[in-house]
């Protein structure tokens, strides 16, 4: 186990007009508010990271990490730094519960002009720039696989997180959806 962790995705397809890469060695954590903790959580995050906690299904951004809203009082923390979950747990002690999910999800980054067409084949959410846009977040299903997705920029670039065990089936969906619409 001194070796690095295996990637969640063994193979990745190359659909037309879309670059698909796996985001590896991320620090992922689920954060859930405890009773009355919203203001305190907001305050501590602002102080420690300069992060402003957004309302609604959106991402809250800080240097090197973001909080993706997954519900009225829950978030998926996504960080380049694998140590972040532990740091968050310590920081938010008493006002939020934090659990490490760095190995629970495989995260893919989809970028390029063909992304909207590709996602249209599996995502039943309106991702049109007029209503979604960078910073938008959603918890949804793609071909019966629970998926957390968020828009990173207007290239467009989207990140999608699925349970690690679904990686093979999810890659199969992407490969099949690669044809033009």
């Amino acid at each position: 186990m001194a070796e690095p962790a295996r990637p969640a995705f063994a193979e990745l397809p190359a659909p037309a007009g879309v670059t698909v890469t796996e985001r590896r060695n991320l620090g992922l954590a689920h954060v859930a508010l405890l009773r009355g903790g919203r203001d305190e959580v907001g305050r501590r995050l602002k102080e420690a990271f300069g992060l402003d906690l957004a309302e609604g299904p959106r991402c809250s951004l800080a240097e090197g990490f973001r909080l993706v809203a997954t519900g009225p009082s829950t978030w998926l923390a996504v960080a380049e730094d694998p140590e972040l979950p532990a740091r968050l747990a310590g920081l938010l002690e008493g006002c939020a519960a934090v659990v490490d999910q760095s190995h629970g999800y495989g995260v893919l980054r989809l970028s390029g002009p063909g992304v909207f067409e590709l996602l249209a084949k599996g995502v039943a959410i309106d991702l049109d720039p007029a209503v979604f846009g960078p910073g938008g977040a959603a918890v949804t299903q793609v071909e019966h696989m629970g998926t957390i997705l968020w828009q990173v920029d207007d290239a467009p670039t989207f990140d999608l997180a699925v349970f690690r065990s679904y990686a093979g089936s999810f890659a199969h969906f992407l490969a099949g959806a690669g044809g033009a619409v």
Partner: protein
Amino acid sequence: MSGRRLQNGGRIDRSRPLGFSFDGKAYSGFAGDTLASALLGEGVGLVGRSFKYHRPRGIVTAGSEEPNALVELRSGARREPNTKATTIELFDGLEATSQNRWPSLGFDVGAVNSLFSPIFVAGFYYKTFMWPAAFWEKLYEPAIRRAAGLGRASGEADPDTYEKANAFCDLLVIGAGPSGLAAALAAGRAGRRVILVEEDRELGGRLLADRLEIDGAPAADWAAVAAAELAALPSVRVMTRTTVFGAYDGETYGALERVADHLPVPPPGMPRQRLWRIVAGRCILAAGAVERTLPFGGNDRPGVMSAAAVRSYLNRYAVAPGGRAVLFTTGDDGWKTAADLAAVGVELAAVIDARAEVDPALAEVARRAGAQVLTGARVTATRGGRALRAVEVQDGRGRQRIACDLLAVAGGWNPALALTTHLGAKPHFDEALAAFVPAGRLPPGMAVAGAAAGHLSLADCLADGFRLGAEAAGAAPSPVPAAGPDASAVRPLWQVEGAKGKAFVDFQNDVTTKDVALAAREGFRSVEHLKRYTTLGMATDQGKNAALLGHALMAELTGRGIAETGTTRFRPPYVPVAIGAFGGTARGRHFRPSRLTPSHDFAAESGASFVEVGQWLRAQWYARPGEDDWLATVNREVKAVRGGVGICDVTTLGKIDIQGPGAAALLDFVYANTFSTLAVGKARYGLMLREDGIVMDDGTTARLGETHYVMSTTTANAAKVMQHLEFCRQVLRPELDVACFSVTEQWGQFSIAGPDACDLLQRLFGDVVDVAALPYMGVTAFRFEGLPIRLFRLSFSGERAYEVALPAGHGDAFMRRVCALGAVPYGTEALGVMRIEKGHVAGNELNGQTTAADLGLGRMMAKGKDFIGKVLAGRPGLTDPARPALVGFKPVDRVHRLRAGAHFLRPGAEATIENAEGHMTSVAFSPMLGHWIGLGLLVRGPSRLGERVRAYDPVRGGDIEVEVCSPVFYDPEGRRLHG
């Protein structure tokens, strides 16, 4: 039939001739033809045989409402029955075959059914073929079933692929005729997201079929300009060859895009069809209207065609469907066909107008063409065998026969309002229009424009489209182009007096006016009963062009108006949709996603066989080279664990992380036993009940900290328990301050079991933690080579055993490392054998009918606290001591195999369900005992140890004697746990 291609005109491309075959004979057509237009152009008029009576049938329409011209398209695996020749785009090499006839279309033995037509009336199978009774099941019903259906499926695997996709818009416009084009322009110009969906390959609708004018120029030109503008508008998406087939809740519409059906074979990577789910803020239904036929005798003969269809063939496809035509019309609209026939020089023998008076200008058109004009007249019958030869006409002066090979019928228009009724709205009968129009509570956000709303004239269509499009877009109305003259006045004609011969009100299901009268006589007087009794409107065309005639007749027979009689509601799909399109990519292995464990690759490399547990694939056993018998493999694995050490991937069991001051209270609430008293660093087996007192799930829950627990569940119930906890947390006990997280995927978890397990783990972890010192049911967390590890001392097998949890990405490496240290990998079968040997309950016993007491776990029901299921578990029915309870079973003759599912009977009792006293729940061959063992539920089982009962399995022919015993077969004192 003497249809022919016209020298000039049409929207076909004469520079691209295409070859095709029909019933094995070679023909040719042009790019731009449909199969129907190409057949008519080659003089082919007979295209099928009707369902029941095998009557010769020809092409009736030029669109997707076609009832007769159903063919089998393509051959081999791609053969598709019941495709409409009127919508098949001709391609080079197309092969089509007629249906429902033997041995040939021209000479069909089935036509003998016509002779027996008095027997084969509606509902005949309820009244005939009843005697002798035994013949029904063995002879009559199979024969009737074989005769039923139109066309044959290929029976081979579908080589094509299908896709599904989602789309969103501010405005969905259904139909790209004049109204739809106008609406899309109005909204698209205002910058709204518009999706315009059109069934045909080209936009324009009837602008392509009729000779109409817009702004003083041919209407088809206006359509082309509109199409170009729409293609250039960035917020407008135009989808051709696409049919919206259903309106659903949530402003959602289903549409089928025929991506590659117009090509001989889909190119690699292209799906054949794509099913769309379109969510639209607003919708405008501009689907046009369908022309009705009329109920005269022989109205189904090849050569009898919709007058509007005749215009379409003349103007769009440059085909004259006959050489000598008669027009039978009830309104001005039909006269357009007379003018169009005359314009291309097709002989017009007569115009039969049902009205007493006709506009002299129209009559003049006919007279100039040399045609007789009969007013206040009707066609009563047609003559001819497989093709029309003449019509019988009656008017005030008497009867006459007029020779012709084409009868164009203009019976009025039915607005294509099916989608408005999909969510339950009832249409309203418009007396002036003599048709049903959309009414009632339409699908939310839907408006109806043009002919679909009963506004038939071109001017009204354009006005509707521009107005409703602007309204939907919240934009100012734009100017409406000027429409040229168009006719629409109609006089309804529901019955033809003096009609002779069968008058059909449903062509595809062979339903006649006589069947409607029969239904009325027999009491099936509501239109919904009429429909099911006669099958009127139940064929693939949903009665689009004639069913209203049946309803009108029923109205007359029952002395009610049509408005009161009503019409049936339509249901999706509006046109037939291939089941493959609904399936999309979910086929075969990919019917649902698979979940793979962290050690999956290792298992596959090791030759493991896998079993599906829900979506998971779990290693069932690891056969070694040379091991052909799964039982031998499983026995080896069990002996390896009990004699040494084995490792099993148990990641799939649900893991739920529970944190917060309210964690202990939540666990006390959901479990029957108590967890607030569990010490930090210990685990406990927990039993979870449903509200009704029945056992729901079991697992072990460990306390990692004062306010931190991790729960385990069975694999099958992981998601269900997670939902249950969330429901309890959010709804039942919202005052508890607690959070729950699913961490099944985060941690790979491995069971390491056997007398050498402790040794192995000590060798592995010994520098960091004293494994041997961990007490039974203890848990400890530490870091090893930089990774967080949780070590639990738990046993499902009854051996001294541990579970190691570590981040899932390192699970594969861990499995390999432990195997390299001497552990034998074992799968779910061996896991199951060992737990049965120890009498541990699992899914077979937690079957949704058993209580804690039934399973011998009554002592776990805590007395001092409230918990889910406590109250209802106390019901007399659930505390009855006579309930079947858990015991063990051994075959009396040790060589016998036990079977799960066998029912228990007292020796000598008759084998009836009333005498059954429980059933066998789990069985296994025990390599430790050398014979089969079983667990089961037996009435008063625990008090009957030593008794013999019969295990009766009539399904698999098992019937043996078994001995009732303790469910703990191996190491009953549990010494090996501490071994």
